[in-house]
């Protein structure tokens, strides 16, 4: 609900005067900064605090299996939450004639991006038994990763600091936002898909190492 509300106020949903959800989807990278860490912060922190991690890792599962199982369960939850915004789509479809291809690609981008955010949150929560620390660190990392691709920030780097274009591109290449923007425009670039999946995969790999330490 909050996501829908914010998009109305901040995204200029009505001003756009078009039957599109672009403003809604463009806002999601910012929303996820708080939303995904709220889901992911307890993944490992809570196990450590309650001591159940000792129970879990004396059951016959490998660390990798446990990490993947937790990640997939939370990702499924996030996917469900994202898909619950579907009534928005129906409203737009009722009011106008949206581009269904764009909507599908936007949703795909959302799900993938949520996975990448969640990978980061899972990793940070493995470092501490304190959920608050886990949340704050996750929010910070996700915020930086969105910011790097924000047009205002890249303009600042390129214009004010006069950094060369290739460096600005390199920096923004690490951002969720730059990789997500394509999906919102209806472009499914394999590079973007691979970026999100490999980021999640890499975080989970580190997650296993941290837990086995």
């Amino acid at each position: 609900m909050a996501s829908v509300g914010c998009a109305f106020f901040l995204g200029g949903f009505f001003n756009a005067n078009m039957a599109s959800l672009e403003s809604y989807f463009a806002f999601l990278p910012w929303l996820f900064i708080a939303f995904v860490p709220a889901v992911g912060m307890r993944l490992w922190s809570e196990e450590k605090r309650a001591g159940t991690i000792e129970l879990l890792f004396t059951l016959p599962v490998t660390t990798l299996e446990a990490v993947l199982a937790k990640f997939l369960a939370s990702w499924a939850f996030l996917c469900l939450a994202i898909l619950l915004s579907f009534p928005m789509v129906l409203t737009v479809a009722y009011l106008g004639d949206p581009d269904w291809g764009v909507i599908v690609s936007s949703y795909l981008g959302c799900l993938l991006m949520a996975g990448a955010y969640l990978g980061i949150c899972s990793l940070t929560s493995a470092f501490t038994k304190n959920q608050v620390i886990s949340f704050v660190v996750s929010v910070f990392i996700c915020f930086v990763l969105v910011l790097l691709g924000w047009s205002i920030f890249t303009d600042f780097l390129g214009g004010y600091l006069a950094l060369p274009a290739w460096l600005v591109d390199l920096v923004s290449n690490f951002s969720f936002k730059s990789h997500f923007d394509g999906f919102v425009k209806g472009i499914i670039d394999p590079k973007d898909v691979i970026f999100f999946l490999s980021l999640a995969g890499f975080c989970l790999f580190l997650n296993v190492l941290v837990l086995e330490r």
Partner: protein
Amino acid sequence: MIEVQGLVKNYGALRAVDGVSFKVNRGDILGFLGPNGAGKSTTMKVIMGFLRPTAGTAIVGGHDVTVDPVAVKRMVGYLPENAPAYPEMTVEEFLGFIAEVRGFRTIAQSRPRIERVVDLCHLTQVRRQTIETLSKGFKQRVGFAQALLHDPPVLVLDEPTDGLDPNQKHEVRNLIKQMAAEKAIILSTHILEEVEAICTRIIIITRGKVVVDATPEELHARHAGAQLEEIFRDLTQTDT
């Protein structure tokens, strides 16, 4: 069944376990004694593959825990200190979860096992209660039930009777005794009468080192006329 070989475990600069070796055979109930902080729980965590040993290893049922920890975990029922469990689950949900992870995936496979341990550990009256609302003793029983669920050939129990009322203590001891014939069991405890009542072997450790490894009879023969309590005090007090 269990073979611990030259086990060393450091926490940073602190050496919690210092060259512990022993063997436990089928039919043995090993009483693992020692003052607070002696390294009992740490030794058990290493045997279970939860902590990585600094040196040495433990071999359970032919599987080296540093090589194939999952095989060891499959063979052992483990009750960690303070019986951790997921607080928001009910007793039934929790045991169902353990059954599933232990490979009993269908209701037909898990139901009879859950019923058996609920019965054995007298959990019937709390089976639909969430674990966070249980009293300490019942929580402890849930932990014990969880360890028995897959009827493992090896049991590692860290203070299994901690927090139980006298009747339950008696019951748990009898239960352990009954199961002992076809299992290898290690249990740590601070209750010396418990050791006298059920253990077939006694190991006392202080500051990470084994100072006694004997049967109760041998121990009494060696210290003629002394109570176990006096022997324990004699052997461990000089160090602390």
